[in-house]
């Protein structure tokens, strides 16, 4: 199937899901699982993964270098399984970093971009493709089927986890919302959308293991940084800055809660 046909099919399937859920009160997640299974390996995220692999190997930036020597946590150049150990503490930056912030570091140190250039334009859209989404799709795809294994034992990792927990339960803004408002109890739904309880292991494993995702409704692969950014928008908070310390601490909390779960992304979502 070509990509356009495939996308049209996905949209039809999504519409079918909405009707079926409404009529039979079937779980939306079950329906999405069903059409995901029907699609087999037809996830458009593959296009981002391929583009990301090219970008990883391509000589770019003022230093005309590739990212192939980038240390993502398992040693320079090791991509296989790297996402399962992130976020983690890196001695060279003396910081806890997630995938996106680590890519920024490598774009600066290896390729010679300024931090501002490396962080610019982190999220793409249907007519606006950016390197970050593709790199994230490629690198995460190399952890597919592996178990999440975030260490969290370095004092800075422990601190990031505890601060991340505080941020998760922090109520604020005009609506008094925290992450926990929607993601702190079992079997909750917003409209027809099932909500994972991110304080419980099984839900956290399933949810964290499903990002990044190709969002059918947006025609784009969305990274975990995007997921957090958009949650805070809906929480009515100010804008969470890309690869900010709070975004990494919160990711630490959520990723470590997913330890032991099978990573199964880039996935495909409505």
């Amino acid at each position, binding site marked *: 199937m070509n990509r356009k046909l495939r996308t049209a099919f996905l949209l039809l399937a999504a519409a079918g899901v909405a009707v079926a859920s*409404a*009529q039979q009160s079937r779980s939306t997640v079950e329906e999405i699982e069903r059409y995901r299974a029907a699609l087999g390996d037809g996830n458009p995220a593959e296009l981002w993964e391929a583009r990301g692999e090219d970008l990883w190997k391509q000589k770019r930036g003022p230093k005309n270098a590739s990212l192939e020597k980038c240390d993502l946590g398992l040693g320079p150049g090791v991509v296989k399984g790297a996402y399962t150990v992130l976020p983690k503490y890196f001695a060279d930056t003396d910081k806890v970093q997630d995938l996106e912030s680590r890519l920024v570091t490598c774009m600066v140190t290896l390729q010679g971009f300024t931090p501002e250039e490396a962080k610019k334009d982190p999220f793409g859209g249907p007519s606006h493709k950016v390197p970050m989404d593709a790199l994230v799709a490629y690198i995460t795809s190399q952890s597919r089927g592996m178990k999440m294994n975030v260490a969290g034992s370095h004092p800075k990792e422990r*601190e990031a986890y*505890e*601060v991340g*927990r*505080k*941020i998760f*339960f*922090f*109520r*604020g*803004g*005009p*609506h*008094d*919302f*925290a992450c*926990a*408002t*929607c993601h*702190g*109890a079992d*079997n*909750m*739904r*917003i*409209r*027809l*959308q099932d*909500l994972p309880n991110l304080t419980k292991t099984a839900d956290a494993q399933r949810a964290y293991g499903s990002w990044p995702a190709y969002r059918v409704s947006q025609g784009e692969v969305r990274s975990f940084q995007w997921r957090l950014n958009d949650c*805070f*928008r*809906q929480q*009515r*908070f*100010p*804008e*969470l*800055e890309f690869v*900010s*310390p*709070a*975004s990494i*601490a919160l990711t630490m909390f959520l990723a470590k809660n997913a330890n032991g779960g099978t990573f199964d992304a880039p996935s495909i979502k409505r």
Partner: protein
Amino acid sequence: MKKTTALAISSALALVAGCAGMMGEEKNYDQEALAMMRASFKEHGQAKLDRLDQDDMQRLCSEYSQKPMPKEVSEKLEREQQAAIKYPADGKYLGDYKSGERIAQSGQGMQYNDNPANPSGANCYACHQLSKAELSFGTIGPSLYNFGKIRGFTPEMQKYAYGKVYNSQAFSACSNMPRFGHKHILTEQQVKDVVALLIDPESPVNK
């Protein structure tokens, strides 16, 4: 007597907290989290950084989100929130249920990409079942289908519903529900319209 007991309890708690601190256990990361958040968010449109400044309710409910809130704390919180409710000067609580239904459907408002010139919705259906016709409803809050039919159409119930929509914390400390009147998400007229959706006998909620 009550004051003495409360004082004794808080002194004991302070002592326990102090000991835990000395042992290096149970470190409280509140200050770190707040400082980190202030450094990690940027203002965008109507969403300024002061949205990270917690009021008493937000601070206490965050603090007690993973442990039970002592009764005296929750009761004090409810009393304070109750005292801050502004009931309509005309003593009328019922607005237009049709407008209430539109407000209940709309999730517009207060996000940084929303136009502040447009009226906000309350997005009631995100969390509650209301009319029987709307099948796309959430389950974070209880079903409100037949609210008036079950609880009565009395002026007392109208006033209760007005207060609950205006400030849910006044009746149930640390409820997940936004304080629609207290935080100026909805206008007084909009709160009345939502009350009508719940209590007007003609409303689809009571059909």
